[in-house]
């Protein structure tokens, strides 16, 4: 028979404890801030670039960071880069919008039944691995040297990735959520717009992001190859032209613009959309 053990009952007093809660130091906060960390990283990269270019001392091969920035500022002031960027962005928006519309149609078709889904899956499996640029020669024959052929390859770049993600998103909507939606007596279109669409939104957003990156890459490359049309060219064409004149700092400035625009879309537009939607809803995938 074991002895009866003594029970312990404490009264909790707030004494003897130094810190219950205290604000973090400013360095700790800075370290926790992703934007601050990345800014420091970018600064270091620029420093390495500058150092290497100076050591190489060959502005034709590798201009310094400061030269590049100077060229960028000059080209922006002269209106060359803004004009080229505006042209490229205009094309991007057209191609992207058309691609999204077609992706929506294809997904709607895929949602009607098994044959529709099979069609989407087969088409995506066929065309997704096909680089858009491989279609450019054909597009030039069909649509001529101009906006038409570039928009065609842009649609190809956007369509499959977005359709695939949209379709996957709709299929992944939980059965419970679907039943809840049906329980409300919504109309068919109301059910799609107010239940299925937001429920599939995380996947759709992923598709939009992939689609946009594909489109931007494809566009710059396409412009590089066959860019000029009706007297105005985009950023790709700008880069190509500057290279022909051996204005290498300007080439770097053009590339930097492409990168900066990419960063801006990713970090400003998509991050903003995420923070008011999937992040707030706790649906981040």
């Amino acid at each position: 028979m074991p002895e009866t053990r003594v029970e312990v009952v404490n009264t909790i007093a707030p004494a003897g404890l130094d810190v219950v809660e205290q604000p973090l130091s400013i360095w700790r906060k800075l370290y926790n801030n992703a934007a601050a960390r990345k800014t420091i990283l970018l600064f270091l990269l620029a420093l390495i670039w500058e150092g290497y270019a100076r050591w190489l001392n060959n502005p034709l091969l590798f201009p310094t960071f400061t030269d590049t920035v100077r060229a960028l500022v000059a080209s922006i002031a002269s209106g060359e880069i803004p004009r080229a960027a505006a042209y490229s962005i205009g094309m991007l928006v057209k191609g992207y919008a058309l691609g999204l519309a077609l992706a929506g149609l294809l997904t709607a078709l895929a949602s009607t039944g098994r044959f529709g889904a099979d069609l989407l899956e087969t088409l995506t499996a066929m065309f997704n691995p096909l680089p858009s640029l491989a279609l450019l020669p054909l597009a030039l024959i069909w649509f001529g040297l101009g906006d038409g052929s570039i928009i065609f390859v842009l649609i190809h770049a956007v369509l499959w990735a977005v359709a695939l993600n949209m379709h996957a998103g709709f299929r992944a909507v939980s059965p419970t959520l679907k039943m809840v939606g049906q329980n409300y007596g919504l109309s068919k279109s109301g059910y799609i717009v107010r239940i299925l669409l937001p429920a599939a939104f995380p996947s759709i957003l992923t598709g939009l992001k992939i689609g946009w990156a594909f489109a931007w890459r494809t566009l710059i490359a396409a412009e590089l190859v066959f860019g000029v049309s009706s007297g105005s060219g985009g950023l790709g064409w700008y880069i190509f032209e500057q290279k022909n004149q051996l204005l290498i700092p300007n080439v770097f400035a053009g590339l930097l613009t492409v990168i900066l625009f990419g960063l801006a879309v990713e970090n400003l537009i998509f991050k903003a959309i995420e923070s008011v939607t999937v992040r707030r809803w706790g649906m981040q995938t």
Partner: protein
Amino acid sequence: MALPEPDTLLAVDGVTLQYRTRDRLVTAVWRVSFNVLQSDRFVILGPSGCGKSTLLKAVGGYVHPVEGSISLNNTKITGPGPDRIFVFQEFDQLLPWKTVKENIAFALTASGRLSKREAAARAMHYIEKVRLTDFAGSYPHTLSGGMKQRVAIARGMAMEPQILLMDEPFAALDALTRAHMQEELLRLWDDTRFTVLFVTHSIPEALRIGSRILLLSAHPGQVKAEINSTGSNEARIGSMLFDHA
């Protein structure tokens, strides 16, 4: 055949339910009949795999009987509708893109029952009833499992359906929260006397929640007995469910 009773709200009459898996046809429920009266706390109790959830889905209109009929107020049920609101077991039954209050208000406006302003007022009223006033503006992913189920119950009650269908709503909760929620459900029932059809596999829960208990046998589900919870105990129900004598 269940005998016709006056005051019958929901009549399930000789219902057989089947579903198809990849390679076979399964009969989930075999010729089940029962009546749910106004303000009943009617519990369907049975072991796993007795088809009780499928039966509830059939009342919800998501599954169609291959035999027999289900009618609400003498109208045959043909599909889902806002006169029968479901409360599921799963925590993901709230729309994650809406706050607690919006979830409830949306159900009311989407079904066309109330205007936006009336819906907001009624949503707040029921949020108060389940004691979540402080969380009205929170998104579901910030709530605990028990709180989510309370929101789902508030949503169901706010719709003021003819009958509330609850599919093991407390099964995924820890024991303490579960007991607490059972009490709360009874308190809410005392308040408004809504009619509820409640599915569970727990005998104690059936006894605590139910006023009338339908016992289903396993695979395929058939009615073993329909009893009153007053005057019953766990031993009696256990022997009815599991003794093959």
